[in-house]
């Protein structure tokens, strides 16, 4: 019986793969074609970058089922996957970590990733691999570029396009040119985008304008021995970025990234080896006077430099692939707050918000993906990380006399000192092919994320205690022990996938308010961080159904429940249950469809800073939003997409809001009312 099952699953696998071959005359290269069906999976999504109009990578990611976003304005949406965010997610921009410069995350990594300068985006929910970095308990997002393909002896590939969204008069134009051959190429793409403040369904202005220019230049080559080289430069210039959900706006959000990668086949015992080295240099500025009026002026210029190296080697070993690698990442972050009277640009520093924070992390990892037997695959991985961190300006006094260490001492009884962690992560994941193309998978993982610079060292004092925001230099790393089980079903007309997960977190890093909790020396409602035990569990669902040759529907749902078990409290800023239903007509040349996004209310909130964390702007209401979309091919080279978002012009806001340490009146940012958008692109 066991053998029969194995045979069946083997046959079903082979059955789903059709193989053709061609054996041509001498001196010609024959080809073997391997075709298979795409797998729909609730834990893995690839995004179509041309499908919608988006302000930045963050808004783009919201297309993915189960991805929510913390919203302050239109630009800088900070993604949340399975209720996890910030560095609980590993977001890589073409292999590089780009950490933003704003301590309040106005510029999360995805804000530097315009859809127009990337070729594909993959979202991996939960822990599916350990090779992209430490942490990543909530998921991994890969913004990637591919090597240009020069087909039919073409030497130049060109893509140009433009987009417009009526609400907020947002527009963008882009061009992408690659010239070369299989042996080497030069590629450049550029995009410029601008938007004004949009209006919500009631016609009220929501501060959300932005302006951004991105430029990417890439040089690729190949040596005689087949070693491939690539050098990429990215320059992103953001300005006039307005935030309805913050007390400041951003006149500058810039990133310069440089990356060199070398890839070679057959080095020593490895079948492929890839070495990457990168630097990202983010300059961010925010203030409360350039775009709004304030009685006292304040500005926070900041800098975040991240240098990284990654060396990966893969080898075929037995019935699988073994990946061995090392990575190293060093971050330097500095943010200083200046304040003064209205009318003059403040030059008096009153807080080293990020007091010269230096963090380095060196990782060593091994991961094996192999077959137990036909139709039974597994991944086993392990990763060791050594983290060192220090705040070099923690003992320095700002012009106002404020010293970060005084704040740490006041709230936690410690000063910042050099800290070191040794973190062990492990992953084990099994996949079983069942009959008829169905698949069962389960995974167990332990991942460790170190506290980020804000959680550990943020030092913003104030004479009003509840406006203080103090990082905790004594934070332990957050340890996630996760179980993940899923099923992929394939019917005659349907494909569906469901995944449930349970994440037991020890030392969950909780943003809280000072109420004299264990280890917290004050009860003055200041924003603080502490370790608690927590449990997160939830479900992701993704399905498609083909009604006929030309009609199909998609269904998605996501839910997460997050609880602080140490204090028996809810964990704030947890997205509510949500789902989407779509129906579309499609043929070879055009598509037209409608989707409805249904979001439940969230009543599991913390909205009182005197008793809990106060991070939520109260309970949120359920809502449904209807969108229409369509696309048509313009000859062989062009593509036109149009859509109407929020057709019924509803006034609504997502549950997630950007909490403010300084102003508890900050509320949810309303989404845009009805908005007509279009995108056109041409390829030559």
């Amino acid at each position, binding site marked *: 019986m066991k053998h029969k099952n194995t045979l069946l699953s*083997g*046959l079903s*696998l*082979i059955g789903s*793969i*059709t*193989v*053709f*071959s*061609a*054996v*041509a*005359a*001498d001196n*010609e*290269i*024959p*080809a*073997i*074609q*391997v*075709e*298979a*069906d*795409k797998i729909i*999976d609730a834990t*893995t999504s*690839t995004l179509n970058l041309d499908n919608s109009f988006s302000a930045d990578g963050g808004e783009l990611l919201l297309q993915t089922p189960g991805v929510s976003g913390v919203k302050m304005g239109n630009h800088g949406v900070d993604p949340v996957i399975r209720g996890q965010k910030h560095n609980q997610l590993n977001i890589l921009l073409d292999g590089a970590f780009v950490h933003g410069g704003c301590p309040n995350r106005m510029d999360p990594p995805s804000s530097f990733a315009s859809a127009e300068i990337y070729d*594909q985006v993959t979202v991996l929910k939960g822990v599916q691999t350990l090779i992209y970095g430490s942490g990543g308990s909530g998921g991994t997002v890969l913004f990637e570029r591919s090597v240009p393909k020069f087909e039919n002896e073409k030497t130049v590939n060109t893509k140009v396009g433009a987009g417009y969204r009526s609400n907020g008069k947002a527009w963008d134009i882009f061009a992408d040119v690659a010239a070369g051959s299989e042996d080497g190429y030069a590629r450049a793409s550029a995009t410029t985008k601008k938007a004004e403040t949009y209006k919500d369904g009631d016609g009220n202005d929501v501060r959300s304008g932005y302006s951004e220019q991105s430029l990417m230049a890439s040089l690729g080559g190949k040596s005689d021995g*087949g070693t491939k080289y690539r050098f990429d430069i990215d320059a992103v210039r953001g300005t006039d970025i307005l935030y309805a959900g913050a007390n400041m706006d951003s006149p500058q959000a810039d990133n310069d990234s440089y990356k060199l990668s070398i890839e070679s*086949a057959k080095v020593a015992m490895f*079948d*492929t080896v*890839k070495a990457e080295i990168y630097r990202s240099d983010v300059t961010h500025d925010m203030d409360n006077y350039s775009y709004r009026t304030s009685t006292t002026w304040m500005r926070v210029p900041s800098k975040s430099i991240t240098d990284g190296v990654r060396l990966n080697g893969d080898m*075929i070993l*037995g*019935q*699988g*692939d073994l990946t061995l690698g090392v990575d190293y990442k060093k971050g330097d972050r500095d943010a200083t707050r200046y304040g003064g009277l209205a009318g003059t640009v403040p030059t008096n520093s009153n807080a080293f918000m990020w007091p010269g924070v230096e963090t380095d992390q060196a990782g060593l990892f091994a991961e*094996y*993906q192999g*077959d*137990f*037997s*036909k139709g039974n695959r*597994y991944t*086993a991985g*392990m990763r060791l990380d050594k983290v060192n961190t220090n705040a070099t300006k923690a003992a320095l006094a700002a012009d106002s006399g404020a010293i970060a260490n005084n704040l740490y001492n006041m709230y936690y009884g410690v000063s910042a000192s050099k800290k070191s962690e040794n973190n*062990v992560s*492990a992953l*084990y994941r099994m*996949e079983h092919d069942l009959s008829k193309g169905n*698949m069962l998978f389960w995974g*167990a993982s*332990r991942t460790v994320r170190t506290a980020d610079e804000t959680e550990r060292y943020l030092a913003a004092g104030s004479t009003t205690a509840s406006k203080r925001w103090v990082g905790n230099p004594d934070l*332990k790393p957050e*340890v996630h*022990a996760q179980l993940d089980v899923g099923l992929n079903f394939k019917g005659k007309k349907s494909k569906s996938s469901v995944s449930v997960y349970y994440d037991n977190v*020890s*030392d969950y890093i909780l943003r809280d308010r000072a109420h004299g909790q264990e280890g917290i020396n004050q009860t003055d409602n200041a924003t603080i961080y502490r370790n608690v035990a927590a449990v997160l569990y939830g479900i992701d669902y993704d399905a498609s159904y083909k009604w006929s040759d030309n009609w199909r529907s998609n269904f998605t749902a996501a839910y997460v429940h997050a609880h602080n078990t140490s204090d028996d409290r809810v964990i704030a800023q947890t997205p509510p249950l949500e789902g989407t239903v779509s129906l579309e007509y499609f043929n070879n040349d055009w598509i037209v469809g409608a989707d409805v996004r249904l979001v439940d209310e969230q009543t599991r909130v913390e909205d009182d800073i005197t008793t809990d964390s106060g991070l939520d702007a109260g309970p949120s209401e359920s809502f449904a939003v209807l969108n229409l979309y369509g696309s048509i091919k313009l000859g062989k080279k062009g593509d036109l997409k149009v859509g109407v978002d929020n057709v019924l012009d509803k006034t609504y806001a997502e549950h997630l809001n950007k909490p403010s340490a300084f102003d508890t009146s900050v509320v949810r940012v309303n989404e845009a009312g009805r908005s007509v958008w279009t995108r056109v692109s041409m390829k030559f």
Partner: protein
Amino acid sequence: MTLSNKNNNVVSLLISLLIHSAVFIYVSNSFLIASQAQAPIYDKNISITLLPVNKKLKDNVVDAETVNIKKIAEKKTEKKKQSVQPEQKQATAQKKDAEIKREKTKKSLSVRKSYISTLLMHIEGYKRYPVSARRRNIEGDIKVAFHLLDDGSISELSASGGARALRLAAMRSVTNALPFPPCPEKFNCSMQVNFVMKYKLR
């Protein structure tokens, strides 16, 4: 290591899982190798068609019919040649030698072609589209190259172009296909084999 006691249990459990899986890899590998040697994974239902790769290749492919016509034409020429003057005999003999050589080369080439064809069809039995790539929408063309030795073993196996997962899968399809079908008798099998694997999702 600064691990809390609470986590030590989890770590030891995971380490134990890893060690067990390593043992399992070893056992399952030997099982797989044994089972493959007994029964190569051919599926009678799979249609294996010989297709030209692209236009350029199509033009160069000599089909069976064309070969037959050429052969008939050659035979006719030979008959005509038999009726020529005796003084031309030496030259004709030389020409014949050359023709025989050409025929031999042709024969050897066609044996070579048919062996490569057998080889590729054999490799096809071991093709797999990696599930991770099918899930992540990864497609691409992978150039595979290896040197085939006389004894049927291979060296310098390499794969280039495309995504890492596909490169490794392409290489594994070759290593899994070993040993290759035996070389035709009296034929030198030592040669460089290059082919492309085109991974495409539906």
